[in-house]
């Protein structure tokens, strides 16, 4: 919904332009109908069945009425019906959706059953039946169309309200004591505007088609000339049997097409704005990376992973610049930095998991004696999980909600344990990470965050990797659970004989749980060495971070300073 700030793609802008131009054409015809048309649309102004002439540009119908005038005046009817029906339907749908979504309970249940009912009935048939019952006036028909069209916006709005009402700023307004009216009008509705405009345009298109259809079937308002009505008379007047269809059927048919296509194009563009994720970027040529000619020299003895001068770019932005790190046997490496400092990008680059926009511009990554740049995509796939495994950031919130945790671990374990051994191996792994047997059949939502993190760790180590990279393994957990997770990682290190890389923003965790440390800031390494360097940091950024970290023992921070002296991050 924040998409309003996102510029439209060029192809979409073209569509929007064409759509607007088509609609302007129709609106012009409607506004200038009296000026442009020399004859009235619904009274005879010439002989019946006249062919096009200078007096009657599109000839006349079976009653001698001017068809060009009918074409122009028909635009008025279509636009009026489309506009009014769409407005009413959108207003009604918005009101129902807002109230149902916000109030909930039986109000919601009742409103949604009504929506289901309306949507379940065949639309055109419903309008026809109602039109037969309520009469043939254009005003009645417009109301009927609106009375059927409101259901879709109501359902869309309700689901959006449910989503938006969980947003922080809505809850914030609530606890600030804002009234319901204020919350809905100031906080909820403004976020619906892009959605509402596209809903409105779609509703208008449907209303125009339905009105034309009803009039074509002869159930339209006999006093008002519309495109559908012209087509009805053309059909009755057997225009199709002579060449009269050229000027009697084609023009109103084209006019309808122009309105519908115009609305569809505009609607498409608005929808893209409302939901930028809908944008399809089309097929993208996979980046073909040439393998480097010479293999990089193997890592020195005792070094498991050697990253040398690695540079990763996203477009022109450098996410990791000239970075060198080494993971040494028996020593936990801590990579510490704030969000955006490039630490996660570094991890993804090592594993060959960069998103498509990310490009390794320079540098070497050597795992033992394997040059990771030279083994290709399949080589990397074979390596992941077996040699290097990742505990991805926030993965504990991304487990499959429909599967038991045991089934998810077993799925991973199949690779080395085989189809038959996977179930037993998964039980072993879960017990190894401290998930009690009784909880193996639980689904993720039944487990605490700490338990889910253990499950993710079990999946990471399922195939016996030599190197485990844990990206923010403690974020979002309480201190007790954080300590337990770190204890677990240390235990796995010993029991499974694996090397550990801890990626975190928490300096305290690195200081206490790593042997070597790399401090990153703005895609650069600013300090590296044994963790002892954290006791005497040279870099001012690091000094400041350390001085400002809350601790149990150090001096209480002198907070009695003025606020404006609080250093900006």
């Amino acid at each position, binding site marked *: 919904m924040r998409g309003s*700030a996102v510029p439209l793609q060029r192809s979409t802008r073209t569509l929007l332009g064409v759509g607007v131009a088509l609609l302007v054409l129709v609106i012009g015809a409607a506004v200038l109908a009296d000026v442009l048309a020399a004859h009235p649309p619904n009274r005879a102004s010439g002989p019946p069945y006249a062919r096009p002439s200078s007096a009657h540009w599109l000839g006349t119908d079976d009653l001698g009425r001017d068809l060009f005038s009918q074409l122009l005046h028909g635009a008025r009817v279509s636009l009026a019906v489309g506009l009014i029906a769409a407005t009413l339907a959108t207003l009604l749908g918005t009101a129902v959706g807002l109230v149902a979504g916000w109030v909930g309970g039986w109000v919601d249940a009742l409103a949604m059953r009504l929506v289901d009912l309306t949507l379940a009935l065949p639309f055109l048939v419903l309008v026809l039946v109602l039109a037969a019952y309520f009469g043939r006036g254009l005003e009645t028909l417009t109301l009927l169309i609106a009375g059927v069209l409101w259901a879709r916006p109501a359902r869309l709005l309700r689901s959006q309200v449910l989503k938006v009402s969980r947003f*922080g*700023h809505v*809850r*914030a*307004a609530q*606890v*600030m*004591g804002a*009234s319901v009216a*204020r919350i809905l009008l*100031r*906080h909820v509705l*403004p*976020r619906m505007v892009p959605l509402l405009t596209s809903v409105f345009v779609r509703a208008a298109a449907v209303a125009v088609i339905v009105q034309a259809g009803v009039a074509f079937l002869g159930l339209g308002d006999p006093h008002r000339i519309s495109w559908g009505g012209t087509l009805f008379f053309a059909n009755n007047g057997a225009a199709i049997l002579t060449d009269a269809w050229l000027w009697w059927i084609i023009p109103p048919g084209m006019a309808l097409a122009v309105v519908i296509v115009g609305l569809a194009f505009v609607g498409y563009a608005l929808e893209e704005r409302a939901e930028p994720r809908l944008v399809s970027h089309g097929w993208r040529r996979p980046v073909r990376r040439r393998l480097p000619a010479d293999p990089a020299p193997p890592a020195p*003895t*005792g070094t498991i992973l*050697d*990253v040398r001068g690695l540079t990763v770019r996203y477009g022109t932005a450098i996410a990791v610049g000239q970075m060198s790190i*080494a993971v040494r*046997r*028996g*020593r*936990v490496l801590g990579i510490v930095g*704030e*969000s955006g400092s490039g630490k996660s990008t570094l991890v993804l680059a090592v594993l060959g998991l960069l998103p498509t926009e990310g490009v390794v511009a320079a540098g070497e990554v050597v795992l033992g004696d394997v040059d990771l740049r030279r083994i290709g995509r399949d080589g990397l796939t074979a390596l992941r999980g077996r040699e290097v495994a990742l505990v991805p950031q926030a993965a504990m919130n991304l487990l499959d909600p429909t599967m038991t945790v045991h089934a998810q671990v077993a799925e991973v374990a199949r690779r080395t344990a085989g189809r038959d051994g996977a179930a037993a191996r998964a039980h072993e792994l879960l017990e190894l990470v401290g998930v009690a047997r009784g909880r193996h059949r639980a689904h993720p939502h039944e487990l*605490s*965050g700490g338990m889910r993190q253990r499950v993710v760790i079990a999946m990471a180590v399922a195939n016996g990797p030599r190197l485990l990279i844990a990206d923010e393994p*403690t974020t*979002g957990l*309480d*201190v*007790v*659970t*954080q*300590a337990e997770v770190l204890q677990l990682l240390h235990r796995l290190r*010993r029991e499974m004989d694996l090397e550990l890389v801890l990626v975190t*923003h*928490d*300096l*305290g*965790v690195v200081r*206490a749980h790593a042997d*070597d440390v790399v401090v990153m800031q703005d895609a650069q390494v600013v300090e590296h*060495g*044994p963790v002892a360097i954290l006791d005497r940091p040279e870099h001012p950024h690091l000094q*400041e*971070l350390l001085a*400002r*970290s*809350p601790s*149990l023992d150090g001096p209480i921070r002198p*907070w009695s*300073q*003025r*606020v*404006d002296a*609080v250093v*900006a*991050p």
Partner: protein
Amino acid sequence: MTGDTVVQMTAVTLTYRRRGRDPVHALRDVDLEVAAGERLAVVGRSGAGKSTLARVLLGMEQPTAGTVRVLGKDVAGLRGRRLRDLRQRMHLVFQDPYDSLHPGMAVEQAVAEPLAISGVARGQRRARVVRALEEVGLTPAETFLPRVPSSLSGGQRQRVAMARAVVAEPELVIADEPTSMLDASLRTTVIDLLLALQRDHGTALVFITHDLAVARHVADRVAVVDDGQLVEHGPVQQLLAAPAHPASRLLVDAVRALHGTRPPADPHPDDDGAHHDG
């Protein structure tokens, strides 16, 4: 100010009962007082009942038993307009500061919102908004008024949220894990701002956290919540030095295990432990 006590919870119990399931005791028999201008940290593990406690104070949950008096009003009896009036005298600082600002609302409107809600005339809002922005270090304030959150840095958004917290001079600020999702430097900024604002305005502060190291820096007094019960409370230093309840000890030990020392690295034959150039 309404006397000396801002919050008085007496024997508050909140039980969720669902058909076919065991009842969940979110709070049990909690007694808690917060004096005007006091800084209290409520500390406990995830799911201990800390956030429920905040929700009860704000009248978002009704206790099953016991009384909750906030700013002299019995929260349990309040509905609609009266509850909204009471909420206007407090402020809740959220866990995720990014999410708590409307992405389409300019800084001026966002900070003025508590004023608009409590009916301050439109013409008088701007001066107070400017003063609040200056107070949190967003200067010159006029240049920030028309900006939308997406054009601000994380730290600036945080400051906007803080300006909004103080602009209407609340008597009680409740901060629910306001630092747990932040990087180290932002975390400290939030703590510093909250404390400076608390001091300058004499506001009572209830700071909810799972981290005793943070609690130590923000509060005079700490209340430890475990499994819905208030198991221990007292001056921070005293609790840290001699935690009496097992739950308190667990929290203290966890912080020490997290940030404290640990046994040295496993010695390894081909590892001399020296500084290396990666």
